[in-house]
Structures are given as C-alpha cells and as structure tokens.
C-alpha cells in the first residue's frame, strides 16, 4: 500500500486522509499550546473554568440578575460560558494561518484544516468547562439541574456552529489584511455586553430588544436559558433566524478561506 497520497481520490479515502490530518494537527496544537508540564492538556478547560468562576463570583457580588427570579450562579455560568464558546473560537483563528504556515508544505494540510482544528479545540474546552462547572454547582446545591437538557444542548450546538463559521470568516480575513487582526479584538470586546450573556432580552425596552435580536448569539443564549430555567424566564428568540444567519456565515466563511488559501505565501 502506498501511504502517502492516493492515486485516485474516492470519498472514503479523502475522509481517511482528512481524519488523519485533523488528528495530527490536533495533537500538535495541544502539545505546542499546553506543553507537557503541570496540567498539560487539562488547561484546555481549566482556563475557561477559571474565567467563568471569576465572572460568576463577580456577578453574584454585583447582583447582575437585576432582582429577577433567576438564580445568579446559573445565570452567570450559562452566560459567560456562551461568550467563551464563540469568542475563543474567533480569537484563536486570528493568528492560525501565520503560526502554521510551514505545515502547508505537507500537501494534505490545508488552510481550512488549521481553522477547523482550532475551533474544535476551543469548542471542546468551552463545553468541558461548562459541563464540569454545571455538574459541580448542581451537586453543591448552588444551582438546579436544567429543566430541558436537550434544549440546552441545542442552543449550545447552534452557538458552536456560529463560533466556528465566524472563526472561518475572521481568520481568513486576517490572512488577507492585518487590519482585521487589529479590529477584531476590540469588536469582540464590545460585542460581549450586547451578546445576551449578561441580560435577558425580556428585561430590555421593546425598541432595544429589536436591535439586540439582530445579533445571532443573543438568540442562542435565549434558547439555552429557556432550556435551563424553563418557564421561569420569558424568552425571545427565532431559531430559524439564527440557523439562517449561521448558514450564510458558513458559506461566506468557506469562500473566504478558499480565497485566502490561494494567496497564502509560504516561507
């Protein structure tokens, strides 16, 4: 058998190559980012956990649930975990191409693989952090278990899709122009307070609700929180709008990645 490249490309073979490349890149990413010292790969979820715990403590102290009947710990954990999910994906896509340029000499490694691996890693970290914190808080009695876990999962999955497709777009755009690298971090920072993490749409005046609901992540957080708290909260969302937004974003992102890959200059 010739292991290096297929003489003919069947779908199955392509999938096998794809799986191999993603696995190799994932292992590489884990070793270079987290190293083998101290916690090693565990940092992938320990870091977001530290973030979330800090923010949850801060919000509890500040009473960020604004006197509503939502338990504050659960409000903070659902909110801040959601932010980390889409924001980490995008932040890590910024320098992805630049720091992996030399791997493109291996022909099976393509620019899209580099983005996909980074998003997969971030999604894994954010998901593990969210799950562990939830289980911990539930067992300590700080928050009740979710009313509808499936709906929580649904909202989470949509948000992960949004994060991944936004990461493709931002990462590819950064490969085009360094301005994107400069503009994205402040944009992400400004989007955070608007992203639905720190408020429920229902608390806002109607006029403001309409504006905020233009942002896709707000819909996802509302879906997730309805699943978590059930009828205690009044939610406003449109899953169709969110899905349509993600679909268009994915297509634009994939197109941008293809264009960026054509222009990439190896060393």
């Amino acid at each position, binding site marked *: 058998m010739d292991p*290096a*490249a297929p003489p003919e490309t069947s779908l199955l073979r392509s999938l*096998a190559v794809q799986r191999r490349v993603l696995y190799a890149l994932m292992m590489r990413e884990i070793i270079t980012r987290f190293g083998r010292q101290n916690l090693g790969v565990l940092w992938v979820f320990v870091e977001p956990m530290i973030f979330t715990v800090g923010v949850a403590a801060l919000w509890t102290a500040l009473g960020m649930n604004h006197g509503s009947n939502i338990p504050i710990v659960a409000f903070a954990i659902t909110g801040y975990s959601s932010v980390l999910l889409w924001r980490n994906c995008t932040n890590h896509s910024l320098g992805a191409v630049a720091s992996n340029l030399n791997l493109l*000499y291996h022909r099976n*490694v393509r620019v899209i693989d580099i983005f996909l691996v980074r998003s997969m890693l971030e999604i894994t970290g954010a998901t593990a952090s969210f799950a562990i914190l939830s289980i911990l808080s539930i067992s300590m009695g700080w928050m009740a278990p979710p009313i509808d876990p499936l709906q929580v999962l649904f909202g989470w999955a949509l948000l992960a899709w949004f994060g991944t497709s936004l990461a493709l777009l931002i990462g590819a755009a950064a490969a085009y122009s360094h301005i994107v690298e400069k503009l994205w971090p402040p944009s992400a920072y400004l989007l955070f307070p608007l992203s639905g993490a720190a408020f429920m749409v229902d608390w806002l005046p109607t006029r403001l609700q309409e504006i905020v609901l233009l942002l896709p992540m707000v819909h996802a957080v509302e879906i997730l929180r309805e699943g978590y708290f059930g009828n205690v909260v009044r939610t406003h969302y449109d899953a169709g709008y969110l899905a349509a937004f993600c679909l268009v974003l994915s297509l634009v992102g994939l197109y941008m990645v293809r264009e960026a890959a054509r222009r990439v200059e190896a060393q």
Partner: protein
Amino acid sequence: MISIEDVCKTYDTRFGPRTVLDRVNLRLERGRNVGILGRNGAGKSTLIRLISGAEHPTSGRIRRHMSVSWPLAFGGAFQVHLTGLDNLKFVCRIYGVDYKPLIPFVEDFTELGVYFREPVHHYSNGMLTRLAFALSMAVEFDCFLIDEAMVVGDARFHERCHVELFQKRKDRAFILVTHDPEVIRLYCQSACVLHQGRLHTFDSVDKAYDFYQSSTP
C-alpha cells in the same frame, strides 16, 4: 505522473505584480527524474513550493498522479516547539505511517542522541537538516522534491544522503533544482533551465548545460 500545465505565479510587491513563473510546463513520469537549473532568484524554490502544494499557482494547474514529498531536508516544514520525536510522530500521522518502527532509523541517521527528545529550536542547523532529511525518508514517496541549496552538511552527511536517496530509492522519481550544473550531470536523466520565468526543456543534459552557460553570464 506529475504534470505542470501552463503554470504562472505572480507575487504582489510594492512596485506592482511581479511574475516569477510564466507559463511553465513540465511532465514527469513515475520512476523518472529531472534536474532544473537556474540562477539565484530564477524561481526554483517557488516552483518547488508550487509542486509540493505549499502554495497555489496564480493560473494553470498541477496534476499529481503519484505521491510527492515536501522539499527534501527542508527544516521549515516542521514545528520548532516540538521535539524531534514529536515531529516524526506528526509527519507519520499526516501521511498515515506507523512511527514506532521508524524510530531506530531516525535515531541512527540523525545521530541526535538525547536531543531527539528535545525541542527542535535547541538544534543546530546541521542537526535540523539531518532530522529533516531522515523524516523525508520516513515516508515512502513516489517522487522526491530536492532543492539542492537546502541540503547543506558535511561530506559524511552528503554521502549518507546519497546512499539513502540515490541507491536505496533509485526506483523513485525526483525533481532536483540547483544552480550547479555538475550536480545535474551527476544525478539526472534530463534537464531543464529556468530563465526569466520561462522553463526551457532539453532532451539531453548537455544541451541544457550549453543553454545555461550561454544564456546566463
């Protein structure tokens, strides 16, 4: 077979686009080899990058019906934060090869000793080149890409490379780029000259040599 069809490569510079390769055509059958002569800056390394797939042509296409290596002994295709062993594992995972049986060969060839398990950024240039060459040999490609300028080392290293590549793997195809006509005479069945963006093909190495001498002062 590899076929390069009307490939152009243009880079954007501050003084406008600059064409490095202009309608280049080349065909290489399985088991055959070709040497490409060119002066510094003629576009040899660009051509190698395009064939390896690290970059894409601006226009034209490259078809590969056999497996093609990354540029031989090229240390740049690796991760300096990883150890030599991690790089071996990485390359093997990418190409679907089991790395365990290869460890003795790589350790023996590279003579890295304990450094095999140290991050690559602690390596000297010579160590990096030896590792890079050994990893290129770890995957059994149908066609090797050789940029002669990259394979730097002492006489002993060259001798060992020679054995691995031209004796043990003499059934493979390769594309060798160099500015040194003697290297081509020594190793290649046919030769081309890359001059001012165009690739000139010749049916004999001698004719290529004559053209190279007369066209480039």
